[in-house]
């Protein structure tokens, strides 16, 4: 069965091709599109399950499936198109195809009315295919195909409604930010090839510890360049600015690409390259600190956002920060654990938000209202109209806030515990733990605020819309229910000992992480009193945050967007997202634009290339042509004279 792993990639790819063909030829065949789009994903999920079952029976050794020789460069560098099935890629495989199938199903309901339905599913299937290449690739170049491919699909889907310029710009922004990261990955690849002589994941893990000095400059540079790629793909400081804008795409896209799967690719890459990252303490510090700062900063911004998707977007950035705290401290299992649970509850939150937006949109349509359907200030009291959505999003909120026994509690706690434990190595880790705990408090707060503004109180969108609000059809709510169950029980994947669990995920990933554990110094997990204090702190943060969020939001009536009093002080700074976009604009975009316009365009291209080079060649040719045309004066005698001169010259040459 493992040999058939290529099917998992090929099926969504086939779906993409078929749907693409339909999108071009018969865009109205929506039933066929749904069948192909969802069907190929479910089939891929079936393949994934069977592969996973087989992997569960085995001893955990990685199986590499060579498809064909891709780049026979030299004798030492032969890159095969090969897929690797090990316990890490199986986890990712299940999450991507599983959550992907649910989101595809949701999309059938959400996008049904859209004219670009077939195009949408073609992109979405293509995305899944590339994402699977990313996680299944057996070497960096193969994974890089997927890495670039998901970036492309992300761009296509963010700008899906490209007739609005803002959406197209958001797509471009995402693509460019990702390009900066991709540059880092490429550099890292070159350096790896130069210093280690292979790009194969398994071979790197084997050879790198022997070839590279522990904590040396080379391994630090390689990992930092890799991490630059991760900051782009996984929206960390300094490249996180694209993710909030990426909400311009359809909501299921935000759920699948910008919450559950693609943005976690960076975390996945760090785990894949765990050996290298473990070898460089400096990089580990950088990763952890970046993750912690991102988690904290994004959480603060999320506190003052009003667009329901923007809140979730900053929440995603923040949660990704947590994952990087995990993988940065060397707690790779915890990082992957949080990745999985986050995929569940964040997908659920986005899809729930999608249901709300869907309902608002329909109500607006029925009531001919011009309100912003994504602005939470226009919502309120939706729990009566949308009980299922309220219930499921409530579960997800509890999960993300870290209330036991929901999924997020265990994964987040594990990460924070790992950071705390590493605190004895460097105070930076301790600071990261503190930032993470503060972010957890804020996470609970902004999620409670979101729930309160959306579902509690009284509807603020006007009486005309109210009767038209209702839960989404079952094709949309069904996936939410499944994700809800997963959000509640997901913590069971890696249940710690104090809760009666057996650390299943840790044992599952143990064969994959064996080379890493061989290198790393053992992490002293907190025990006894410390452990319970940490747990108590985390629970307290969650509960206090939730309570405060609901109380403070409901304390005063929420103002409509038009009546919003101007914000002051810190709130204003947060609402403006720390002016980071403006700072980047001032520091990067404008100088680049100036340089491109003045120097590259006007100076080099227009003056040197066009005027001097191209124009100069034209002038010279023109001059020569003018001289030549003077020779062609039409006088036969002149031609004969030239002929005679030529004859003289030839004679002169021959008769020395």
């Amino acid at each position, binding site marked *: 069965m493992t040999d058939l792993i290529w099917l998992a990639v090929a099926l969504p790819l086939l779906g993409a091709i078929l749907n693409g063909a339909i999108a071009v030829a018969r865009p109205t065949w929506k039933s066929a599109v749904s069948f192909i789009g969802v069907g190929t994903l479910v089939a891929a999920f079936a393949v994934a399950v069977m592969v996973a079952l087989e992997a569960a029976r085995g001893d955990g050794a990685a199986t590499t499936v060579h498809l064909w020789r891709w780049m026979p460069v030299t004798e030492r560098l032969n890159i095969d198109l090969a897929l690797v099935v090990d316990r890490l890629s199986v986890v990712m495989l299940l999450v991507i195809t599983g959550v992907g199938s649910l989101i595809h199903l949701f999309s059938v309901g959400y996008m049904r009315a859209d004219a670009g339905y077939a195009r949408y599913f073609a992109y979405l299937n293509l995305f899944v295919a590339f994402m699977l290449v990313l996680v299944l690739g057996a070497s960096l170049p193969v994974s890089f195909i997927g890495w670039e491919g998901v970036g492309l699909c992300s761009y296509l889907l963010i700008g899906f409604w490209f007739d609005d310029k803002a959406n197209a710009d958001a797509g471009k922004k995402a693509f460019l930010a990702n390009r900066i990261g991709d540059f880092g990955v490429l550099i890292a690849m070159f350096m790896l090839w130069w210093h280690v002589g292979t790009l194969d994941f398994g071979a790197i893990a084997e050879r790198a510890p022997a070839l590279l000095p522990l904590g040396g400059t080379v391994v630090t540079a390689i990992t930092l360049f890799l991490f630059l790629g991760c900051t782009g793909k996984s929206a960390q400081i300094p490249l996180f600015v694209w993710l909030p804008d990426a909400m311009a795409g359809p909501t299921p896209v935000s759920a699948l690409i910008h919450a559950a799967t693609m943005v976690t690719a960076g975390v996945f890459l760090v785990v894949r390259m765990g050996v290298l990252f473990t070898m460089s303490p400096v990089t580990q510090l950088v990763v952890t600190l970046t993750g912690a700062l991102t988690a904290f900063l994004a959480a603060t911004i999320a506190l003052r956002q009003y667009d329901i998707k923007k809140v979730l977007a900053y929440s995603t950035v923040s949660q990704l920060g947590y994952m990087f705290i995990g993988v940065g401290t060397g707690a790779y299992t915890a990082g992957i654990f949080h990745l999985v649970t986050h995929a569940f509850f964040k997908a659920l939150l986005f899809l729930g938000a999608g249901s709300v937006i869907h309902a608002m949109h329909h109500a607006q349509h029925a009531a001919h209202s011009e309100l912003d359907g994504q602005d939470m200030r226009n919502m309120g009291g939706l729990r009566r109209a949308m009980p299922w959505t309220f219930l499921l999003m409530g579960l997800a909120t509890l999960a993300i806030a870290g209330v036991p026994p929901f999924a997020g509690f265990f994964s987040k706690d594990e990460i924070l515990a790992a950071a705390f434990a590493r605190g004895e190595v460097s105070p930076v880790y301790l600071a990261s733990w503190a930032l993470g705990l503060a972010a957890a408090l804020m996470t609970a707060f902004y999620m409670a605020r979101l729930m309160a503004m959306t579902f509690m109180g009284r509807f603020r969108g006007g009486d005309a819309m109210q009767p038209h609000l209702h839960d989404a059809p079952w094709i949309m709510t069904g996936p939410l229910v499944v994700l809800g169950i997963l959000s509640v029980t997901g913590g069971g994947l890696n249940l710690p000992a104090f809760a009666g669990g057996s650390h299943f995920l840790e044992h599952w990933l143990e064969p994959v992480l064996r080379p890493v554990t061989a290198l790393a110094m053992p992490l002293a997990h907190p025990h006894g009193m410390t452990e319970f204090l940490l747990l108590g702190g985390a629970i307290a943060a969650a509960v206090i945050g939730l309570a405060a969020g609901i109380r403070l939001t409901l304390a005063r009536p929420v103002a409509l967007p038009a009546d919003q009093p101007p914000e002051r002080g810190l709130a204003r700074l947060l609402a403006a997202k720390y002016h980071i976009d403006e700072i980047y604009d001032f520091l990067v975009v404008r100088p680049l634009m100036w340089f491109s316009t003045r120097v590259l365009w006007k100076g080099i291209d227009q003056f040197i290339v066009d005027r001097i080079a191209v124009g100069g060649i034209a002038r010279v040719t023109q001059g020569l042509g003018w001289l*030549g*045309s*003077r*020779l*062609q*004066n*039409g*006088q*036969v*005698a002149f031609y*004969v*004279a030239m002929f*005679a001169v030529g004859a003289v010259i030839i004679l002169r040459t021959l008769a020395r």
Partner: protein
Amino acid sequence: MLLGPSLALSAVLFAIGVAGVLIRRNAIVLFMCIELMLNAVNLTFIALAQVHGMSGQIMVFFVMTVAAAEAAVGLAIILAIFRHTQTVDLTQLNLLKG
């Protein structure tokens, strides 16, 4: 044998022919200058035929044939041009001017 004097005479006649082609503007006279150059070449052939055998003379025979053909076609062309432009002055015929 008179080899050297013949070749010298041929050179002089050829140069006179070239000069004629270069300085005259009447197409027919130009043609006659070309015939003069051909004759100069023929003289070379004949002179060297004393040394090299009959081939030289036969070549002269061919040159005469070709010259006759050339004269026929060339004069016909001049006739056609004259009918078209009413002149055989080559300075007036500069359609090839670039």
